[in-house]
């Protein structure tokens, strides 16, 4: 049982939860995630550890409501408890001083890229961050990202705030302006990561993506999370979750993410199913 300390909305469909998890808080590094299960009948779902406080023994997760489990999670209150919480899982991000890095987050992906930006900044990198969402109200963690970035650019698809357009267009502009970029971290919906990798391919900028494949155990036992990287099968949970984006077969990933669309829709009729390959 892990007690919920806080569960607050960041935007219409994105929620921040702080959990009591001393062992995980002690150990966790940037890039790692947890698996949680709300109750006896619940599903095991992976969520990135956005932040932690080793002293207080807490971790923070930020999730988007896309289906039954995340919707149920959003209903919980401070003081409630999750039945199961396992972690930290996955390999930590390889953090070094690379020089100039660009951290890009789309939608709830901003929550996933945030701990990377923190660690990269701490390691001495010059951090340029680009965060984006469909519209202004869906932008999350703007202040937090600003604090850890040398420069922050916000983009919205509808132009309601910041740059009018996709985060990929912002990155393209930076490249066109001759900005010398050593590494890109791109985290968000699959189509966004794919486009960003296309942008960085020609200028040969190493681009790290964090994959959100469907998982069960998250310890390398089942292979549900398998992806194809440079033509080789990898397990996202133990070989990743971060990979060189130029080697990832995004089409396969997005197909596999749709494997349970029909039954999942059945389980979560009242809400729009996230079966658009995101």
């Amino acid at each position, binding site marked *: 049982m892990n007690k919920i300390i806080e569960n607050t909305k960041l935007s219409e469909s994105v929620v921040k939860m702080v959990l009591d998890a001393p*062992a995980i808080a002690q150990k966790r590094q940037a890039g790692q995630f947890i698996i949680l299960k709300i109750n006896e009948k619940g599903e095991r779902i992976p969520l990135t550890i956005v932040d932690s406080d080793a002293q207080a023994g807490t971790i923070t997760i930020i999730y988007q409501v896309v289906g039954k489990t995340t919707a149920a999670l959003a209903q919980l209150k401070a003081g409630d408890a999750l039945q199961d919480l*396992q972690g*930290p*899982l996955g390999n930590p991000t390889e953090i070094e001083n690379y020089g100039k890095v660009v951290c890009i987050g789309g939608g709830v992906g901003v929550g996933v890229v945030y701990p990377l930006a923190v660690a990269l900044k701490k390691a001495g990198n010059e951090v340029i961050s680009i965060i984006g969402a469909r519209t202004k109200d869906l932008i999350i963690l703007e202040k937090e990202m600003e604090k850890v970035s040398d420069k922050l650019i916000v983009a919205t698809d509808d132009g309601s705030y910041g740059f009018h357009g996709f985060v990929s267009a912002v990155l393209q502009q930076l490249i066109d302006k001759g900005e010398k970029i050593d590494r890109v971290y791109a985290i968000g919906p699959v189509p966004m990561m794919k486009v960003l990798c296309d942008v960085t391919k020609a200028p040969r900028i190493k681009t790290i993506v964090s994959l959100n494949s469907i998982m*069960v*155990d998250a310890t390398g036992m089942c292979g549900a999370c398998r992806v194809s990287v440079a033509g080789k099968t990898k397990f996202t949970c133990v070989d990743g979750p971060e990979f060189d984006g130029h080697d990832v077969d995004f089409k396969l990933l997005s*197909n596999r993410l749709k494997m349970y669309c029909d039954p999942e829709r059945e389980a979560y009729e009242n809400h729009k199913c996230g079966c658009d390959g995101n």
Partner: protein
Amino acid sequence: MKIISVGVMETKEIKEKKEKVPRQKMPEQEPKKRIRNFEEVPFGYSEETAITEAKRCIQCKKPGCIAGCPVDVKIPEFIKEIAEGRFTEAALKLKETNGLPAVCGRVCPQEDQCEKFCIIGKKGEPVAIGRLERFAADFERNSGNVKIPPAVRSNGKKIAIAGAGPSGLTIAGDLVGLGYDVTIFEALHKAGGVLVYGIPEFRLPKAIVEAEVEYLRKLGVKIETNFVIGRTKTIDELFAEGFNAVFIGVGAGAPVFMDIPGENLSGIYSANEYLTRSNLMKAYLFPEYDTPIVRGKRVAVVGGGNVAMDSVRTALRLGAERAMIIYRRTDVEMPARKEEVHHAQEEGVEFLMLTAPVEYIGNDAGWVTGMKCLKMELGEPDASGRRSPVAIKDSEYVIDVDTVVVAVGTMANPIIPATTPGLETNKKGYIVTKDESGLTSREGIYAGGDIVTGSATVILAMGAGRKAAKAIDEYLSKK
């Protein structure tokens, strides 16, 4: 001469038949009915049947059956208790050497172990030792008065066990009984290992495993679930926290794929994933339970072991119209237990022998629609002594499928070796032990079960746990 000898045999046989009580059958659910549910297939013996069967045992002076048992269960002794109607005593006798009799009575390959050496079996059918074991253990559990031995005085020494499978549960029970302070760290949210995530409900009801785990808790064993050794904490961190010895019983949990084109298409599962979704996560009860599983109509299961049988029978129960076993050798070489194959056949599973998949075909959405196979023939025996399959030229054909389960084996998970400096593994990644004690290349660290032997059996894993318990006790007594 010939005629006379046949005549003699016949009269002898008739005489024997008159006296001989046949091996008692266990009543079972009808195949047609049971493929619509996940309930256990055999119902178990009634008290009368159990006594009748127990009386078939002739109480050999030098019982071969015990020698055939990896944990030396006192077989004639427990059977005698049943024959005389003392069922609880029979269970206690079993428990002297086997901590999980209700499990072993159901899943042990008795035909290759105890029953293989039964003297009655030389002429007719052996005493149904497994069924009697199950009967006694069930009787005790259902009677509701499972005796908890009095607590042992603590010796103040702490033992950490990685993995709550049969090996970990066994060593925990043994060491807590010797006064050790025992904590099991289990990666998943439930204890039991393969017994809860792999073997289906219709073969091993999960309530039985839960009862065994509960019993250990009552004995004083602490179980920390959701705790991945190597991730949540490393073995060296456990030592630093004051644990005096560690046992690694994490199984051979990583799935093997065949690395053929199209294997990552949607609808293709490892047996581990398919069974974990169904058993551990109860996906067969979706949407009451939240975890989904693909309910395929044409399901091909690749492999010929127990895992393949469990998968294909699960597919049937999930509503498959065609449930197929695809195996590259013949039924003679198939490693699955005879009983499982028999049950699968009764239930309507198709067995496509001498067939090997070489490629999967998918539709535009990336879902598997076909399985390209080669026909095989048997050639020379290979290293395992089985005749190895050789592909027949130009024999390619396609089987229509919408779901595939790959059940061609498992391998070692590298998380613990990778995070435990100095822990020696072999070429395949299994942990190297010095001898039967389970001692690894590091002082104070022992290992046993599938993570040492590769995928084997419940009873061998239990035996390894028991031997390591003895070794750890000796090691810490000297310290």
